């Protein structure tokens, strides 16, 4: 006993038994942590579900010039005017609620953010403008949007087939 107490006073691991016990405990803890990590890894999704990010939103002829159309399933607005077609997100950049149209532009019902008619933040807790996406009219006569490619605010494709992106529309 006396020997052990002395070892404890020094705060050192003196005997082989102490060392093995410590190594055992550390080993068990490490294995447990590793198993927890592997379990968590399993929960990280490998496959991405959900709709494709490049999609047609309808025949170009259906969009009347000078109007704004909300594409419900994709949660984007499509604008059509003299410059051509453009599209921007209808998801508030604050926390992702769907914005609604107002007299000045758009507002978010969830936390009161508001945007102008081009989707730029005017007031409220949102810090970023609504993102615009690359939009073009395909050779099939439909309007295509790619939500992976962000465009400048207000950018529209020339009407009808002015975009360089149209060659990769087959997807």
């Amino acid at each position, binding site marked *: 006993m006396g020997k052990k107490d002395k070892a404890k006073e020094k705060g050192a691991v003196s005997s082989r038994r102490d060392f093995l016990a410590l190594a055992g405990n550390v080993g068990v803890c490490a294995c447990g942590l590793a198993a927890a990590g592997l379990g*968590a890894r399993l*929960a*990280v*999704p490998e496959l*991405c*579900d*959900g709709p494709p990010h490049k999609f047609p939103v309808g025949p170009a002829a259906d969009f009347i010039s000078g109007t704004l159309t909300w594409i*419900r*399933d994709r*949660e984007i607005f499509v604008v059509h005017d003299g410059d051509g077609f453009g599209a921007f997100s209808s998801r508030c950049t*604050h*926390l*992702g*609620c*769907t914005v*609604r149209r107002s007299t000045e532009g758009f*507002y*978010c*019902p*969830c*936390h*009161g953010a*508001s945007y102008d008619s081009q989707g730029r*933040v005017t*007031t*409220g*807790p949102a*810090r970023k403008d609504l993102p615009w996406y690359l939009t073009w009219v395909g050779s099939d006569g439909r309007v295509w949007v790619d939500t992976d490619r962000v465009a400048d605010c207000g950018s529209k494709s020339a009407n009808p087939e002015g975009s360089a992106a149209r060659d990769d529309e087959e997807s």
Partner: protein
Amino acid sequence: MKGFFRALGGNLPGNLRRGLRPGVADGGNSAASRLRRSFVYHLHPLRITRRALRVSTTLGLGVVSLTAFLILSVTGVLLMIYYQPGTGEAYASMQDIQYAVALGSFVRALHRWAAYAMLVSVLLHLLRVASMGAYRGRELNWLVGLGLGACVLGLAFTGYLLPWDQRSYWAVRVSANMLDSVPFLGGAIKSMMLGGQSVGQSALLRFYMLHVALLPAGMLALVAVHLWRIRRDGGLAGAPKEGEDSELLPAWPHLVLREALLMLWVLVILAAVAALVSAPLGVPVDVHVPANPEKAPWYFLWAQELVSYSAPLGAFVIPALLLAGLVGLPFLDRENVGVGRWFGTPACRLAVLFSALAAIAALGLFEVFYMRAGPGAFFKALGTVWPDVVNPGTGMIVMALLAALTAGIATGSTRAAFLSGLVVMLVMLLGFTLIGACRGPNWVFYWPWEGWPSVV
């Protein structure tokens, strides 16, 4: 009561009887042997002080929380018989439970009210222990308790999505996006929680798994450790005052029967409420259009109000600060004076009282100036960067720090400093909850007596 237990075990075989009946034992019929030989009572110490028995010492909040947890486990299993965790089936199965299944709406209501009771009692339990400094010498159990608190919040959050109605869907969609403001880990946690980037079938199934398996299992394990540590740490914190009755009473029947009675009362009251008030089921979900306004459940309204000032603040900074403070508390406070007394010493009580009054006054001023001007004017005046730095939420942090500093210097006590800061945060968060409750369409503030304008 004695007769009841005798009747309970009257015709059972010997071993079983000994387990159930805390008096019938091979050797002796003493109080000690009752406790030693019974499974139900082995958690209790043999003897207990009069002070520990008084209602005002603990308010029985731990027992109330435990009872709510037991009720939730039983009603939860019953609900699992009918509930289907699919985006197409979930809402219909909730309607079945609510309107078709025998006793379904009662069991669902009991589950809902027991959950609310648990949220409240767990919060009060934490405040009771903190205000008494009862974490002294019980650092591990304090951390286990915080883990339990996290489980309770996680269960409330995951359970909220399961009905798959309009409110629950949008609450979770908004909360999931809040994780984007958490640095480093936020994105990974979000994709692990949702099983993708949006709230859909994978998210519903994962929330279901968390709600019925992982979190309850974690909770059960932590409850076991929590109860065991109470005995290991020597029961309730705090020595009897001078001149106070230090006589020890046997835990059976003095403590055990009081606990059983409290559990019965909790069950009876919750069952009565559930029988009278059924749990609301919202309208079917529209996954593209949120209602106006879309309100968080009452226990997360403060967070919704805070993120409406600044997303990173409400989603990360304030929760992280609160957590860090609570975890660090028993390691920073090394004082033994006033342990086991409400708000410790008289000086500490005074500091806490002043801090609470200051917080109420600040909240009133904020109400008059800020709310009257309207949040729109506030954001317009500050541009797009400053609202993250200057807003009512950061005002709360500054005020809590000031209160803690003042109380710490005035009393020289870490505990007084911490409790003063905590009480400022609590008063303010309660205030934010009330303000959030008053939010109407477009997140505009309306007094309760004002009608909401109709919006399309």
